[in-house]
């Protein structure tokens, strides 16, 4: 497969003023300012193939948006090189714009007081989409989602879910090679989230569009992404598929138990008995995290069975959410 995006060792530095505190500090800031350099993105390289869906993850302030802004051509890298569809986005911004679509979950590119169909018509003219392609796209849309009631509704009267859905449709309208989705499911209810995931999946499959998805919702990642890239403090921590990530972290499983007696007291004594396994408890379950490379779940279970009256049990794979949380908190070492 051909690589639609090639990123080679990009770094982005910002010059940030050091602000002083308080009134006197603010007054002094008017006359003299010192700056420090903030490295928002630090030596990142990756290749992205046409048609991939990539989960681009990292805690808040990790440098995700900065990387995306560089790929869209809004920012210029301090050093390194990006090629999107063969050309450098910041030098050919308007040409690059024809190849990309963008959705920012927090903002809309639609015309606020116009019905959705008018926004679509405008985008058709702005991106110079041929009529045949435009009609084909609208047909595809109506086969994927119930778009009828939305088309004639002014965007300002839409619910957040409807608006996000419309924004995603608008981003795909000119059949771009790449679509950047920045937290598209933020603030949406469960059913809308799943609708949007299905829509993204279908559009990716039908149009072979490369999708770069930033999100904090691991549900999005599990539903859509084969490959994830994690960055923190501007550095790349991980770039592979999600299955590898779990293995990479050892064969962790969570053993959930319900035992006779007060759960929190029992949890403490279990923790004392199993020094290698972190134990937590809530109202219903005691959870024991077991690393199967060191100790089998079955042996833990039989050990506990001798001293506790086990009423109920469940076995859970470690969730991607748990994995990501551990990476954010501890880093990969």
């Amino acid at each position, binding site marked *: 497969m051909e690589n639609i995006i090639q990123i080679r060792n990009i770094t982005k530095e910002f010059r940030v003023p050091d602000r002083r505190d308080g009134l006197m500090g603010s007054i002094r800031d008017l006359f003299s300012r010192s700056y420090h350099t903030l490295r928002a993105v630090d030596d990142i390289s990756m290749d992205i193939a046409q048609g991939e869906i990539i989960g681009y993850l990292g805690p808040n302030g990790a440098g995700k948006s900065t990387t995306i802004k560089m790929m869209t051509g*809004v920012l210029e890298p301090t050093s390194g090189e990006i090629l999107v569809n063969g050309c450098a986005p910041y030098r050919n911004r308007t040409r690059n714009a024809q190849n990309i679509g963008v959705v920012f979950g927090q*903002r809309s590119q639609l015309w606020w007081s116009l019905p959705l169909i008018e926004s679509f018509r*405008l985008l058709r003219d702005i991106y110079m989409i041929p009529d045949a392609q435009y009609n084909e796209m609208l047909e595809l849309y109506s086969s994927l989602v119930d778009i009828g009631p939305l088309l004639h509704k002014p965007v300002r009267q839409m619910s957040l879910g409807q608006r996000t859905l419309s924004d995603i449709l608008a981003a795909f309208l000119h059949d771009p090679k790449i679509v950047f989705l920045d937290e598209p499911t933020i603030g949406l209810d469960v059913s809308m989230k799943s609708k949007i995931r299905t829509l993204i999946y279908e559009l990716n499959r039908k149009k072979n569009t490369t999708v770069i998805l930033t999100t904090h919702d691991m549900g999005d990642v599990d539903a859509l992404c084969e490959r994830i890239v994690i960055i923190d403090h501007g550095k790349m921590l991980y770039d592979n598929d999600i299955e590898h990530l779990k293995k990479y972290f050892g064969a962790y499983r969570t053993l959930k138990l319900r035992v006779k007696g007060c759960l929190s007291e029992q949890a403490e004594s279990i923790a004392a008995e199993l020094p290698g396994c972190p134990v937590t408890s809530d109202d219903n379950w005691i959870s024991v995290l077991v690393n199967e490379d060191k100790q089998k779940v079955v042996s833990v279970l039989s050990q506990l069975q001798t001293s506790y009256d086990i009423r109920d049990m469940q076995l859970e794979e470690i969730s991607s959410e748990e994995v990501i949380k551990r990476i954010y908190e501890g880093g990969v070492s």
Partner: protein
Amino acid sequence: MKLKRYLALTRAGIIESLQYRIAMIVMVIGNLLYLTLVYFLWKSIYASSGTDIVNGMTFTDTLIYLVLATALFHFMEMYTVWEIGRNIQTGKIVLDLIKPMEYRRYLFWSYSGSFAVQFFTTFLPTFIIVAVLTHGAVPIGINLVWFVISVAIAVTINYSIDFIVGTICLYTESIWGINIMKQVIVLLLSGATIPLAFFPEELHRIVECLPFQSIYNAPLTILLKADPAPAEVLPVIGVQLAWAVVMTAAGCLFWKCSLRQITVNGG
């Protein structure tokens, strides 16, 4: 077809401004209130001067000039500075920058629709009222054609100035003060609030050398000339054209440098 994408923006702008009925009514009423104020202010200025002609202009001349200047102001005011400033503050500018169009043009054409609407809601009615009330003191003839050409150039100059001031917001990240300052300077030095004939001699000479008088003074002077000879009009339009070219070039250049600034230092 490149033109189609621009006209599409105009069309959307027209539909968009037609959505807000109350806002349109308020604008028409506000316009009328201001005109009444202008009428009584200048009536008393003329009454206290004791003569019928002040600085070579009769009361009717002055009134027609100012009323049409106001109408022209409502027609030309694009609130570009607000728009750019707000887009920078909220970060929406990123969405506009990744449209396959130059930002300067994109913004202009996005606003052109409200131009068209304002022409019909403020300028045209005011013009007709003035023409009727003054019983033909506004000459109607070839001057109207020159006037339209002159206004078109004035719009370009006005937009360029707005765009340059808006670009300054990239650095300051605040809008209010800058915008107010721009508005006061432009309205005063362009002859929109006081006819240039009333300016002291030295100030008048300085203002003649600035771009602002090309925005209001030039088209209005042309409009109020009955049957002007081309030799009278062409120098005025020539000066306007020169300013339009200079200001547009300056605006483009400043924007280009500034955008580099954001793309280098963050945005």
